[in-house]
């Protein structure tokens, strides 16, 4: 089932051209995402499924507000967040200040983006050969053989570089957190 930003966005764009099959696929793909979103943000006595259905209807009836030049998940979670906030506002119920953050943070996106930046900045502190050896298989998902071919070195050389690089990074992180 499609869950990545790119897959969901592609389905949404097809749905906007009037493709009913893509629209059905999109709505089905959103159900688990919305369930986990609302489960984490609503009180236990709230009916998560009501919120999921309500959001699906909004995605359907207000899909013209999606701007194709912008990320789909940002649009989706902005709607979901708004529904939570509006729900509590409507019932004039206050939300504990600690929970506000969890309503506001976009699902996982911020963590993923921050982790990427952190890894990038850490890798620049390593010698280029080790950084490349780590980046290719561990960040970009290439095989060791591909990484070796790209760098023009042997596979065992790649493995040694990865090992040394990770050990150096480990030492650096431990050093900086003390």
């Amino acid at each position, binding site marked *: 089932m499609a869950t990545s930003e790119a897959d969901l966005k592609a389905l949404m764009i097809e*749905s*906007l*051209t*009037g*493709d*009913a*099959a893509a*629209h*059905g696929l999109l*709505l*089905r793909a959103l*159900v688990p995402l919305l369930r986990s979103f609302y489960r984490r943000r609503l009180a236990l006595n709230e009916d998560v*499924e009501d919120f*999921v*259905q309500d959001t*699906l*209807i*909004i995605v*359907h*009836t*207000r*899909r*013209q*507000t*999606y*701007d*194709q030049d*912008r990320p789909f998940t*940002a*649009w989706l*979670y*902005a*709607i979901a*967040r*708004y529904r939570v906030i*509006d729900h509590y506002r409507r019932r004039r119920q206050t939300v504990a200040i600690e929970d506000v953050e969890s309503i506001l943070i976009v699902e996982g996106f911020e963590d993923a983006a921050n982790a990427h930046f952190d890894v990038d900045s850490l890798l620049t502190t390593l010698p280029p050969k080790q950084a490349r050896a780590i980046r290719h298989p561990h960040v970009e998902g290439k095989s060791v053989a591909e990484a070796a071919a790209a760098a023009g070195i042997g596979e065992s050389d790649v493995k040694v570089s990865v090992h040394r690089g990770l050990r150096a990074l480990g030492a650096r992180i431990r050093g900086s957190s003390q």
Partner: protein
Amino acid sequence: MNTEQLIETLSRDVPRVSRYAVLQRVATGIVAGGLAAMLLVTATLGVRPDLQVAMHGFSFWMKWTYTISLGIGAIYAITRLARPAPGSLRGLWLLAVPVLILTGIGVGELARTPSSEWLAMWLGRSWTSCPWLVLTLSAPIFAGLLWSFRKLAPTRLHAAGAVAGLGAGAWAATIYCLHCPEVSAIFVLTWYSLGILLAAGIGALLGPRLLRW
């Protein structure tokens, strides 16, 4: 109804949506409200009798350029804020450009006029009514925009209400130009802008109440 049935039902009706659907929806609301405002002007205030002549002069086009460029900027802002996750609104600073240009023209006017006439030029003959008439004419346009928003999805309701008010005010001022015989730049800069800002302020106050969905 369970979720699967809901999805089945929703997938049965999937019309094509234009990339410009939001813009079309906003423009329709403004045009409908603008027609109502224009009817109000012709029926109650009356179009200025020298409109034909005035349309060949500088001050008429100065006023229109000012109000129309504010109106276009407001439409841009509305189409952004009518969406969830509107993103950066840095482009809104462009709205200051027409204000600055008109200020420049106003300063030039003052320099060419003896200071004893400044007050008369600033207050014109209609400063007491101009902002209120602009505000009144903005009401039908704001109502048209409320209709537009019924199919849209703003999540920042104060800001969305403010730009809707700004757009309604700017287009109301554009229509009010058909009636208003004032010619000086500082008059327009003060009293037109005041009417437009009042509309924007009221829009910002009403936004959370009227634009929620």
